[in-house]
């Protein structure tokens, strides 16, 4: 069994954050946790190649990296692709998810990885991949790799994988039907009794997990801060030049308000289809409050109003997609030197 393993700069031993720009390279044989992986996969398995890439390079060049990795996996005639485990590392998780999904889809071989629940890669790829729950603690490496190996072996043997709680992967959110002996009534009474008496119970459905969003520290001096307006209410320039969809928008736009004190109805339109838009159409400042923000800028309450506002549509937007949009917008605003954001939502 030939295995190709993907690692980031840290787990491959190149370095920490300072080495995150490392370009992709191929190494022979197993590296770092790959040795453990090889061992746990059994005597038949060999990690013939390890692909290594820095997290920043991966994040900024994901398309090229994916193409490159697919070629390497093809060349190696791999039977199995394993990436990570990534634990909490977000850039690593997102890159890993993309690579695994591509390998699975385009090469048709099993791909397995491991991440913590909070890793954005889980949210983005849980439906497409088996992602072992590694937890956040890197000291649990052995446990994580062990589960990854077991899962991989099952996939290779074409065996049933089993439910998430058994095999240790993040629930993929796919619904399967099962006839059971107990009626729903019996299960309800049992469950409420357990909950009422403080005993353990297992819900048949876990709500989507929304991990805590760490709150940034307060703005120290607003009068010197650059503040940007962001909206998910779908206010866009007339003609919707970036073709932002009203429903499940895939993209966002940045629109200049340089020298503008007040948004005029004739210059804008609403792409979000989920609310009665006529009031915002009449006066877009009702969603994107440029007029008042300029006032406050003039008064010195805020240091500067960013000369662009960002817009997308929040309607029926899947959570994973919204997270991606949010991350991209945050990245752009950080690059623009923005200190704080006012997000106005429909």
């Amino acid at each position, binding site marked *: 069994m030939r295995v190709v393993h993907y690692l980031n700069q840290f787990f491959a031993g190149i370095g920490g954050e300072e080495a995150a720009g490392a370009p992709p390279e191929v190494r022979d044989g197993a590296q770092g946790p790959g040795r453990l992986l090889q061992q746990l996969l059994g005597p038949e398995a060999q990690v013939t190649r390890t692909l290594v890439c820095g997290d920043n390079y991966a994040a900024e060049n994901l398309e090229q990296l994916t193409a490159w990795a697919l070629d390497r996996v093809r060349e190696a005639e791999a039977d199995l692709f394993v990436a990570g485990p990534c634990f909490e590392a977000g850039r690593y998780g997102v890159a890993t998810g993309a690579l695994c999904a591509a390998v699975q889809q385009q090469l048709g071989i099993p791909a397995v990885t491991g991440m913590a629940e909070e890793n954005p890669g889980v949210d983005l790829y849980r439906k497409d991949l088996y992602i072992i729950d590694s937890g956040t603690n890197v000291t649990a490496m052995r446990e994580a790799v062990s589960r990854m190996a077991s899962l991989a072996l099952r996939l290779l043997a074409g065996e049933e994988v089993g439910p998430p709680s058994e095999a240790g992967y993040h629930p993929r959110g796919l619904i399967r039907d099962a006839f059971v002996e107990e009626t729903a009534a019996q299960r309800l009474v049992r469950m*409420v009794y357990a909950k*009422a008496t403080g005993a353990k119970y297992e819900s048949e459905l876990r709500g989507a997990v929304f991990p805590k969003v760490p709150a940034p520290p307060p703005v120290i001096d607003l009068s010197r801060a650059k503040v940007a307006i962001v909206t998910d209410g779908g206010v866009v320039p007339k003609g919707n030049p970036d073709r932002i969809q009203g429903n499940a928008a895939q993209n966002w736009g940045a629109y200049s308000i340089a020298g503008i004190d007040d948004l005029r109805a004739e210059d804008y339109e609403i792409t979000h289809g989920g609310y009665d838009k006529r009031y915002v159409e009449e006066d877009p400042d009702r969603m994107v409050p440029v007029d008042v923000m300029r006032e406050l800028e003039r008064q010195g309450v805020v240091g500067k109003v960013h000369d662009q506002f960002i817009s997308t549509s929040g309607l029926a937007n899947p959570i994973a997609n919204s997270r991606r949009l949010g991350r991209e917008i945050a990245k752009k605003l950080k690059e623009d030197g923005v200190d704080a954001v006012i997000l106005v939502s429909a």
Partner: protein
Amino acid sequence: MRLTLFVHPITDLRLGGETRIEGTALTVGEEELRGALLQDSRLESVAFEVVRAGEHARIGGVFDVIEPRAKQPGDGYDFPGAISPMALAGRGTTHVLRGMTVAVLGEPSGSVIEMSGPWAEWCPFSALHHLVVIPNPRPELPRHMALNARKQAGLRAAAYLARASLGLPPADTEMYESDGPSQPRVEGVPRVAYIAQVHSRQFVAEVDEQILYGHNTTGMVPVVLHPNEWLDGAVLAPNAGLNVLTYHYQNHPILTELYRWQNEGKVALVGTIATMAGGDNFDRDLNCTLAAELTKWALDADAAILTKTGGGAPHADMGYTAKLLEDMGVKTAVMVGPPNLSPERTVESSTLFNYPEVDAIVFNSGGAYFELPAAKVERVVAPSPEAAEALFNLEKLAASRVTGVTSQQGAQRLRALVY
């Protein structure tokens, strides 16, 4: 308040001249029953069919399923407020013909009782005998009147049949007794309430739709009911069905299970709330808040089980009510499903509410996207020959179409697993 059921098992069912029970065999006096039902001048005619457990048969166009039950004279009225004068239900003695139902048919789009084949094992009605009642309302009647006439025909037939057992010794006796919220709290024995939606205002109830003691629930806010009232004919399935059957109010899976646990000393069933899913945000907020506060302050419950009727919006109401209860310190368990909301059958589309405290969820599956092969049948009983024809050679049937498979009353054994 105590309800005593005198249970008369029925193992054989046939049409005949005179209505009588001999041993465990019920003969239905066809002409007599017809005469009784046609006293409702809204009906042009009424047909009867007997379908026995185990037959290779299918019953289509099912409007409601009702267990034959009759009150011991003096202990109240049959289906009070609906076909009888108003009287408090749930006390004294009620005679039950167990092992059979009255299946009343309506429009051809109604559900299907599969008596054989792959669905039979999971359809609660395949193991029972059925007197199928096919009322034919006058064609010129407005739809709501026709529906009411059908419902009443079914209820009258059910009461009529059970009356044949009055005076006969029961083979079995069941007792349901609860002292309600005034019973003292016992350490280690959680006080449990059951909150059920009986209608959803996504559908406007007809003026003569009979749901709660004959009332159509329009304009109502939630009310407290004794558990026995549900079991004894106070609550009926709505016209739209909404995966609710009168049979499963009479034999309520959740209430009977709670009573079982109470008899074992594990819980105290302190009461129930009947509520309605809201028609708009204001209605929702009002009903959810009142249902929660009645549960906490009128019933003094420690825990509550919640169910809904219908689909998406009622699901949100149920979730919100549960959240309000959790905020008040009442532990909740809710029943959701089926995951009909999108064909991709993913969890995200099933969760229209997400409150971390509402974390005890029973997840029903089924719905329109889960199918099994339909049985090869020798006979179809349906509201019309055309309907019967259409139902004869079916390839498969979705869970949503088979009577009792998708149950918002807890009878369901088709679960959703999240992988």
